[in-house]
């Protein structure tokens, strides 16, 4: 850690109509330091970082980087000053390749036109002509040199990425690495990461932390926005806590505890463990056998899953991102076609039925990607609240739809679920809500239907501590109403806290089943990464690499254990 502040933000004040988002905040970050920025949603973290990245102009206050005072009017100013930012919602173009995304805005001309290319067929005099140069820079694109550099960067920091792959084909974890590459490619001195682990599995997060430590060792300063306490203590050197637009404190991580930080952040004591009552498990609401489905690229990602969920039972599905969770959740919600297998909801065969049939059968779905499947950003809270309920008789006014009633319904959801930032349900769009509040809106809509089966995929991802508590309790409350719940999460604490039964998914198969009482985190971790437990033969220790697609022997091995799980499931 260097001993003088590299970045200083002094007395930053920013007011939005009716809200003071940043109330005279000071922040200083040393060279080579990883600095945590901790706070609930709406505490002012994002505003502060948007000011640093030139997206907002502060009403007052000054920013110094090194010895220079910065005037940041646009992100370009920030980039020029050496500040990079990885946003929570990725700013990538799905149709372009990794390399194309990384060089966006920093293109190089095609090799033929490059001045330093000795093999070019064009004579140097032409290449150096100003007109030719500017035309080439505007209208040609050379990817060979950048691709090579990007691949080197990726390899250097342990990012497992093919630079010529289309971004659309990458999973969220990989997409985030592309975002980080974008910043690294621009040679930044200060990297801001906005809740980077929100989309990562524990193993991937560890890898990210390794990479970040390596970057920090090389002198890069990192600001790490988060509301996960564990991450702050795991990686940050110092942490600044914000609450309601004010800086509460800045403390060295070594001198504090998670409980202290939580109290600083929320202003009250926070319960870390949720008590759940035993609920009686009734008849099966979901019976799935031999489920097979492909992912968007047409590669099989569910390879014969059996799953039974009973009334009032929470089945937690743990796994590393990209092992078929997304496809499983979508298949159970009826929006992904099965290539094989049977699916019964409440005893009725819904194999191959339309999404509508699933909705009508009482299946609720909290999708992993809120903006894609969960809501329509540009439509009002009213529309989004009524996304499934609008068909109900109570909203029918003859042949018309009773928008007034729908409005009252939306208001009742907003009130019951304490969704903040909604002054008028017809006026505020879903896209105006913060991540946590949007998630509450989606959950409110899905739970208010009193579903028979709830599919919740990463329900608390990217949500602040207060909202996490709320959402978890809402799910447990629903369980007591007799709803069967399939909970897919990469957060092992969430799985063990909420589930009655835990299944581990790996490469589209259930490889391990346990209960929270018997769960051993280490064993879960090994199963999630496709490793094998000690009593199995030799090549058992194939830790992180096993995340990548593995060899056929591996697959054969896990088929066996699936059979065990299936048998165990039947006996239940």
């Amino acid at each position, binding site marked *: 850690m260097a001993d003088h502040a590299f970045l200083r933000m002094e007395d930053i004040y920013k007011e939005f109509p009716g809200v003071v988002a940043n109330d005279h905040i000071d922040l200083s970050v040393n060279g080579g330091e990883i600095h945590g920025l901790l706070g609930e949603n709406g505490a002012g973290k994002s505003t502060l970082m948007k000011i640093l990245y030139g997206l907002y102009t502060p009403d007052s206050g000054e920013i110094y980087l090194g010895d220079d005072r910065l005037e940041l009017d*646009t992100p370009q100013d920030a980039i020029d000053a050496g500040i990079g930012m990885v946003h929570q919602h990725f700013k990538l173009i799905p149709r372009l390749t990794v390399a194309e995304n990384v060089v966006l805005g*920093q293109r190089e001309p095609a090799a033929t036109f490059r001045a330093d290319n000795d093999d070019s067929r064009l004579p140097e005099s032409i290449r150096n002509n100003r007109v030719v140069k500017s035309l080439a820079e505007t209208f040609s694109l050379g990817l060979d040199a950048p691709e090579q550099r990007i691949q080197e960067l990726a390899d250097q920091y342990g990012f497992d990425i093919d630079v010529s792959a289309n971004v659309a084909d990458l999973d969220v974890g990989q997409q985030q690495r592309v975002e980080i590459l974008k910043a690294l490619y621009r040679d930044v001195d200060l990297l801001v990461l906005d809740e980077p682990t929100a989309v990562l599995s524990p193993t991937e997060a560890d890898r990210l932390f390794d990479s970040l430590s390596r970057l920090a060792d090389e002198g890069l300063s990192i600001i790490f926005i988060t509301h996960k306490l564990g991450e702050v203590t795991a990686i940050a050197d110092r942490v600044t806590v914000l609450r309601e637009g004010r800086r509460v404190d800045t403390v060295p991580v070594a001198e504090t505890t998670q409980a202290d930080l939580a109290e600083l952040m929320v202003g009250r004591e926070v319960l870390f463990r949720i008590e759940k009552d035993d609920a009686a498990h009734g008849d099966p609401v979901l019976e799935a056998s031999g489920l097979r489905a492909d992912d968007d690229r047409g590669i099989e990602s569910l390879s014969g899953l059996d799953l039974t969920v009973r009334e009032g039972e929470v089945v937690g599905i743990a796994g590393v991102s990209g092992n078929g969770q997304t496809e499983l959740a979508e298949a159970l919600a009826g929006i992904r076609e099965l290539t094989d297998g049977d699916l019964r909801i409440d005893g009725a065969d819904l194999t191959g039925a339309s999404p*509508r049939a699933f909705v009508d059968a009482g299946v609720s*779905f909290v999708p992993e990607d809120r903006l894609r*499947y969960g809501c*329509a950003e540009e439509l009002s809270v009213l529309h989004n609240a*009524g996304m499934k309920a609008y068909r109900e008789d109570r909203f029918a006014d003859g*042949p018309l*739809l009773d928008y007034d009633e729908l409005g009252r319904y939306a208001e009742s959801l907003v009130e019951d679920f304490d969704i903040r930032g909604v002054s008028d349900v017809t006026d505020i769009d879903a896209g*105006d809500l913060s991540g946590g509040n949007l998630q509450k809106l989606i959950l409110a809509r899905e739970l208010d239907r009193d579903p028979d089966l709830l599919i919740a995929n990463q329900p608390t991802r990217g949500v602040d501590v207060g909202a996490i508590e709320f959402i978890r309790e809402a799910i447990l409350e629903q369980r007591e109403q007799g709803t069967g719940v399939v909970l897919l999460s990469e957060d092992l604490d969430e799985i063990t806290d909420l589930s009655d039964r835990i299944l581990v998914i790996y490469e589209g198969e259930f490889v391990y089943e346990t209960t929270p009482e018997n769960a051993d985190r280490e064993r879960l971790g090994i199963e999630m990464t496709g490793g094998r437990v000690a009593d199995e033969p030799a090549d058992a220790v194939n830790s992180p690499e096993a995340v990548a697609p593995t060899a056929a022997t591996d697959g054969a091995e896990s088929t066996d254990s699936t059979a065990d799980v299936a048998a165990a499931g039947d006996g239940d």
Partner: protein
Amino acid sequence: MVGIDLTARENVPRWLNYATPVVTILLALACGAVALLALGVSPLAAYWTMFGDTLLSTFGRTQTLIKAVPLILAGLAVYLPLRAGLFNIGAEGQLVFGAIAGTWIGLNVELPSVLLLPLMFVAAGTAGAFLAGIPAWLRAKWDVNEIITSLLLTFVALQLQSYLVRGPMQDPTGNFPHTAQLSAAATIPEALLGVHAGLIVAVVAVAVTYVLVRKTGLGFEITFVGANDAAARQAGMSRFKIYLLVFVIGGAFAGLAGISEIAGLQGRLRAGFEPGYGFTAIPIALLGRNSAINVMLAGLFFALLFVGGSSMSVAYGVPAALVEILQALIILFLITAEFFKRYHVDIEFDRAGDAATGGEA
């Protein structure tokens, strides 16, 4: 050095939504004024002839309303798919198809007027709906781009019409490329102010569309599919149904536009009977995309441009193409306005060289 910085607006101010159509039109007129000046005509006098005289004379008002009928109906044909996030560029072809089918019924079916006219409208609507259904089905089922298919089908319709009026449907008494005159029973009667009853059809279509989009469950689905079709699907809405529905209803409206133009005004179907109403419908729908009522207002405005434009060109001897230039300018400014609505533009002077590179990025 001049640096131009673009930043996406976080929120589009509400007033901007209302101001853009008005400012768009005013700017287009201002640019048109330059062309008028170049022709040695006073823009103020010319615009007064164009708008003032047209609106103040009974003849001008009647003509404007007559022109507005096909424009409003065709505008709705583009507007409705637009709500569901689709572009119907083929209103022209659907309109022609409607005109052909309606005229055929009018020429070949012997019925009293009260039965014949509704039958002609039904036939025209069905034909328009059929032609619009093809791109919708292709889009819903196979994700084939509806912009291209609907546009190309327009040429199919135009060629078919060209063949029919020179062949099977040609007026047997003459050698011109048109059909025989429709009988009195097959002619749409005058409704009010010297305007044929097609106007009532257009107003009813506007009302139906308004209620459909704003007040019904189907409209809720149309809006949702238009905003995010993946979420709509998850909620159990059928994208297939909605895509087909908006195109089919839209195509039917365009078909109605075709037959009301023939049976209400022209009396017979001739090759090239209509001056691109289906294409003019696109800027009309874009101008009025916030609601069906705005589409009606935009349709009336474009009708006024047509009618006023021809009186202006007669009165001042300026080329009639000037009106087309004005329309084109409106479209251009509309697209530009969209851009300014979405982005905040800063132009900065006297910055160092790096400002220029900043602007490029």
